[in-house]
């Protein structure tokens, strides 16, 4: 009799308890954290912004779904495709033709993610890689920030030209730019949410921002000018990039030391691109470049195991 009951028990290796946090919960928290920036983007640029974001999300999710059919493995439930689609949408100007978010979504999921082995295997942030692909291929559309709400240059372009900008508007987000990048406040609210939940920490964004500030203080030609520094921080995709894209688990180093090195690299690269490059932006390219260096950074920043270093009496 006992023998029958015996076979019913599940047997597995320790531990026998698991935390409740899973991959979808993490992805969902990122989506929620992006809502303030998304909401402000729609408020700022109008309903067309919503349309672009929706097309982008549909494109990434559908691509992942179709690819899943081919390889007979459904990965839709982890919500990572939604995050990619949302980020891609937020990284586009509101005036792009509607086929662009669709094309970007296919590129992000199919080329950058699925062909490299799916979630966890991509070596570049899919949304950013797709954005860079679009910027290079269709720069006319991707760098045109004229729309119903705004005409004229972005604050960063104005800064580069030596003009003055309204910092208050930059912090609030009342400026031209891509849909989700303009409001520093909305992005920081979302980032605080993620930090409080423990989904991200300040190692990457903190070292990124600090390194960037130090770089522009030294090379910006304005010395320690708080107005200039705040404008540089609030402008372009720096905040969105630092808190939501540089912190992408898959494409940042996993080692704590490596994350700081990675952040510093991004800060310096963004500084170089912004100050010395032909365009006023540089966040996307910095992060993509940084992604490529991750294996190298991880290699040199392995954590030291607990104990008195190598050796010991029983070596």
């Amino acid at each position, binding site marked *: 009799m*006992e*023998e029958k*009951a*015996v*076979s*019913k*028990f*599940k*047997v*597995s*290796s*320790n*531990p*026998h*308890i*698991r*935390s409740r*946090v*899973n*991959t979808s*919960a*993490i992805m969902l928290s990122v989506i929620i954290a992006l809502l303030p920036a998304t909401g402000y983007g729609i408020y700022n640029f109008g309903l067309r912004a919503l349309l672009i974001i929706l097309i982008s999300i549909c494109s990434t999710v559908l691509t992942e779904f179709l690819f899943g059919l081919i390889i007979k493995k459904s990965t839709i439930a*982890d919500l*990572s495709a939604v995050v990619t689609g949302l980020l891609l949408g937020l990284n586009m100007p509101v005036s792009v033709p509607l086929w662009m978010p669709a094309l970007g979504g296919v590129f992000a999921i199919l080329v950058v993610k699925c062909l490299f082995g*799916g*979630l*966890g*295997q991509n070596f570049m942030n899919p949304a950013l890689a797709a954005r860079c692909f679009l910027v290079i291929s269709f720069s006319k559309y991707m760098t045109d920030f004229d729309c119903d709400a705004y005409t004229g240059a972005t604050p960063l372009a104005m800064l580069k030209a030596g003009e003055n900008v309204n910092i208050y508007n930059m912090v609030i987000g009342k400026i031209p730019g891509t849909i989700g990048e303009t409001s520093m406040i909305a992005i920081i609210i979302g980032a605080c949410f993620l930090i409080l939940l423990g989904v991200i920490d300040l190692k990457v964004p903190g070292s990124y921002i600090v390194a960037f500030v130090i770089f522009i203080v030294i090379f910006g030609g304005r010395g320690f000018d708080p107005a200039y520094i705040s404008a540089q921080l609030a402008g372009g995709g720096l905040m969105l990039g630092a808190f939501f894209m540089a912190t992408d*688990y*898959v*494409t*940042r180093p*996993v*080692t*704590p030391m490596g994350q700081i090195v990675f952040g510093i690299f991004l800060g310096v690269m963004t500084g170089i691109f912004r100050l010395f490059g032909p365009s006023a932006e540089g966040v996307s390219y910095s992060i993509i470049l940084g992604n490529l260096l991750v294996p190298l950074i991880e290699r040199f920043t*392995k*954590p*030291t*195991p*607990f*104990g*008195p*270093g190598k*050796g*010991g*009496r*029983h*070596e």
Partner: protein
Amino acid sequence: MAKFSFVGGIHPYDGKDLSKDSPIEDAPCGKELVYPLSQHIGAPASPLVKKGDRVLSGQRIADAAGFVSSPIYASVSGTVKDIDKRRTVTGDMVMSIILENDGLYESVPFTKRETADNLTKEEVISIIKDAGIVGMGGAGFPTHVKLSPKEPDKIEYVIANCAECEPYLTSDYRRMLEEPEKLIGGLELIVSLFDNAHGILAVEDNKPDCIALLKKLIKDKPYLSVKPLRTKYPQGAERQLIYAATGRKINSKMLPADVGCIVNNVDTIVSIYRAVYEGRPLMERIITLTGDAVKKPQNYRVKIGTLYEDIVEYAGGFKETPEKIVCGGPMMGFAMYGLDVPTTKTSTALLAFTKDEVSASAPSPCINCGRCLEVCPGRVMPSKLADYAEHFDEEAFLQNNGMECCECGCCSFICPAKRPLTQEIKSMRKILLAKRKKG
């Protein structure tokens, strides 16, 4: 310098409320008791009895087969039914002495001792050795070996591991509340073995009542102190405990004695007390029976060799058929195939869960979140080590300090992708350790 904690670790649901408030109760044993000859680290004990022999409770039925080994005592009176292979909690078949309980509980006489002052250090260690005492926290390392370091003068701290960091377990907690004088007396005995040693009772701060009680009892003993430690799993892991209590670090290749420390578990120390002052060999221990499938979660005083099914039956059985049964704590215990296996010197608990959290969610790809690195008390990279183990990349595994893993289970617990990280690393370590042993 004490650090009171360590880097890494997790805070799982502790489930201790289920069983912590009921006093320890004696659990009777069944008709048959089984004594595996190998319930300690080292050479299996060699039987002193044969089929058909009548034995008394407290009689030595198997002798230590070497220095790193330990004798085994009958915990009831009865007849030797057989000496054969029997299944143990790990699922292995182990040569065991099977005893038929005659229900008379006839015992050999035990000689009590009023004081241990007239015993030499060697005599105390030999009493401990003859009593069959091994590390009762789970490892089962023979205690007399632990208490005989190469340079006894260099031992500065004797640490009583009262952390009980495993969720659900409350046996040490109950022991501390109900028999604190035996714990303190046992610790004093060990401290007296080393000329320069100080005794530390290291307790997690989720047991403030124990801390207060122990502090009161050791007030006049300057050579003992109570150290409250931050509550965090695995605070009671030997390396983390030594660091938290003394600020000293050892790696996987070192022994606590290398940094002047000796660590013993609560039950072990109480058994030492009973062996020296009451003359009783190791025959019983406290087992926590708990989990959401158990009708009456509680701590039981169990005669070693009793089958788990007899304890469960005595406790009124299960509320619901459990989906998983674990011997030991939920973090490091063994999932069992059935209840027809014996309790041993190293059994700490029996947990019965109505839902198995492990099989509830399938593993998915690693998203490189780094949570496993954050919680790893060994400060290694579990996600990478598991990858190397999966591909059997021995070189990369060793280069990335795979052997420093203590198999505590924090990485698997925290992993949002629900990967069996601990399992991968553990099996790789097992293979490599076996290989190393072979030479």
